[in-house]
């Protein structure tokens, strides 16, 4: 048989027109902590190239190792294969420089949240750096919940491509994201992001621009209230969890979720929410503060509301 011919398809459309929609092929991630690793893995497993930026090579290596560990656990428990892992890993590259984001279709900033709005300036700077290298239709997004996208993008030249995409990471079933349009966000940017979310098989929930979105604002109050009840002796931790799970139909109880997300992070969310709304229900409960002071941040540190073994399996209650 004669050799395979390879051609470009553009010549063969019935109607010669300019096709404006562009496909996603490359996603950039700035700051590759827990969320960043999760987003990188998800994007890569749906066939997208991913580039992650961290401040040092060491941190890049660390992030990539964590993603690998996660894939290993998926192989152990979910019938993922070594070849899937290889494919996922092969699409993820690391960098320490913004230049490598040049050909990205979407860049998501997932830098750590600092309390009292301290991360705001850092994020803003990232957006400005990004604008220097990416093309004008590249979407710039933040995964942050407590920073408002309109504020983040106000100094940019092409503000209309900025948007907020918040991923939920606490369980394999949390296949849902919150998307927020800012003041300047264009419809096409929203459409494009919706298409991206659809591509990685998530459900998109549109949320109006507001600190904490729906998820964080709701969850922080639930957790605070749950802690309060423990302190008041109204119910013990396990019973509250059980009631939320069986009674209210939540998949995980508030304390378990807290340990997965990390108490350090939650307390910063709370601080930012308190600054925004001035409502004391957002102030971190003393129980949370106590654990943070002891550096018991949750699963990541092996101890939070619960104690964990080295595989991240819950061992027992700690309070």
């Amino acid at each position, binding site marked *: 048989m004669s050799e*395979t011919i390879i051609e470009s*398809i553009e010549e*063969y459309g019935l109607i010669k027109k300019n096709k404006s929609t562009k496909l996603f092929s490359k996603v950039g991630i700035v700051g590759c902590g827990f969320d960043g690793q999760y987003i990188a893995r998800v994007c890569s497993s*749906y066939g997208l190239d991913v580039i992650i930026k961290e401040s040092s090579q060491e941190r890049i290596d660390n992030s990539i190792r964590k993603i690998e560990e996660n894939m290993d656990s998926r*192989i152990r*428990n979910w019938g993922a294969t070594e070849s899937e892992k290889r494919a996922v890993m092969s699409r993820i590259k690391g960098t320490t420089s913004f230049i490598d984001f040049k050909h990205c279709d979407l860049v998501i900033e997932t830098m750590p949240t600092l309390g009292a709005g301290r991360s705001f300036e850092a994020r803003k700077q990232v957006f400005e750096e990004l604008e220097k290298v990416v093309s004008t239709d590249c979407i710039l997004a933040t995964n942050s919940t407590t920073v408002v996208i309109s504020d983040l993008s106000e100094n940019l030249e092409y503000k209309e491509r900025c948007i907020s995409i918040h991923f939920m990471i606490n*369980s*394999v079933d949390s296949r849902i994201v919150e998307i927020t349009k800012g003041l300047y966000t264009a419809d096409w940017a929203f459409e494009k992001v919706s298409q991206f979310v659809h591509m990685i098989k998530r459900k998109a929930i549109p949320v109006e621009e507001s600190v904490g979105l729906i998820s964080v604002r709701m969850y922080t109050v639930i957790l605070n209230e749950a802690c309060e009840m423990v302190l008041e002796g109204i119910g013990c931790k396990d019973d509250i969890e059980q009631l939320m799970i069986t009674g209210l139909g939540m998949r*995980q109880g508030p304390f378990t979720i807290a340990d997965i997300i990390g108490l350090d992070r939650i307390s910063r969310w709370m601080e930012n929410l308190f600054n925004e709304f001035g409502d004391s229900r957002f102030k971190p409960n003393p129980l949370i503060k106590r654990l943070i002071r002891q550096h018991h941040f949750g699963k990541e540190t092996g101890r939070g509301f619960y104690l964990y073994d080295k595989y991240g399996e819950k061992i027992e209650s700690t309070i």
Partner: protein
Amino acid sequence: MKILVLNCGSSSIKFQFFEMTNQTVLAKGLVDKIGLNGSQLILTKQDGQVVVFQGEIVDHKIGIEYVLGVLTSEKHGCIKNLSEISAVGHRVVHGGEAFSSSVLIDDEVIAEMEKCIELAPLHNPPNLKGIEAISDLIPDMDQVGVFDTAFHQTMPEYSYMYAIPYSLYKKYGVRRYGFHGTSHRYVSERACEIEGSEFCNKKIISCHLGNGASVAAIQNGQSMDTSMGLTPLEGLIMGTRAGDLDIGAALFLMEKENIGVESASDLFNKHSGMLGITSISSDLREIHKAAHEGNEMAQLAMKMFDYRVKKYIGAYTAAMNGCDYLIFTGGIGENAAITREGICKELSWLGFDIDKETNNKTHGKEAVISTPDSKVKIMVIPTNEELMIALDTLKIIEKK
């Protein structure tokens, strides 16, 4: 008369273009990775020349547009004008209880098909997209829908009912539908044609073993039982699907692993089956290779696969009180002699005697692989769903 056959999947479109006067394939191919990075159209021309067209294919409509563009192109096409296409036949996965045979597509049919989306949320929407795209691109084109479930609509009530509250059947149509109907129909009719026997008085068991796999019992020219059920998950162990599974075990796992319905559905549809057992691959060829090299899990998985098929063959032999032909088809059924042997060995008591030598020599071609004195004729018949769809399409537009 020329007929285009389309099979639209969630991110791919398979097409074949037939000249019906002599049933030849003028062109065939695949649009791959629709909406994804690396999307392309692969065309195989009548002379066997393969052409790969690379570029952005954002959705099904654009994919179909390119298919039509390529077919009419001067360089690689086989027709000059779209008007040379007499009709388009679509493979549609789920026809529910509304369709027991192929139909000419009109608004009413589309409305019925939309109702079936709930039963096949993954498959029916892309099928509908394909139909819509053709209507947009070539208005007034005759389109025919050929349903995967239609052939099994003749199953008797005692075969298709689950033992769950009857109201669930009446309210939501929870029952066994079965799939691969076009393939089962094609190979069983073909077997009778080859043997020169009357289709309507033979008892036939057909095993469509591919990435998806199902067994059907065919009596009096009608499907009377099949192994896939409400969804294509039930029955045999497949590439990545679990097949028959104790619901209690499924629910136990959901609770233990703290996963919701969607993850569970993913688990049983995408991470189970041959892939889940072996952690090697969902591709039987790779599993055969590993088994050959001594991988124990691969050996076990192969045994499990064969074992499950064997059980269905026995069950359907009992249900029909006999069997005249046993047919193997689908990628595995047509090519994997070792699997056919694994299934048929030690089945002589029921009248199945496989001829090992003939079996070993048979790859992807029509052949009888049983011994001359085997009570049941065991046959390999490559399936040809596309041709079946083209023939159905032709029949319907000629009647019009």
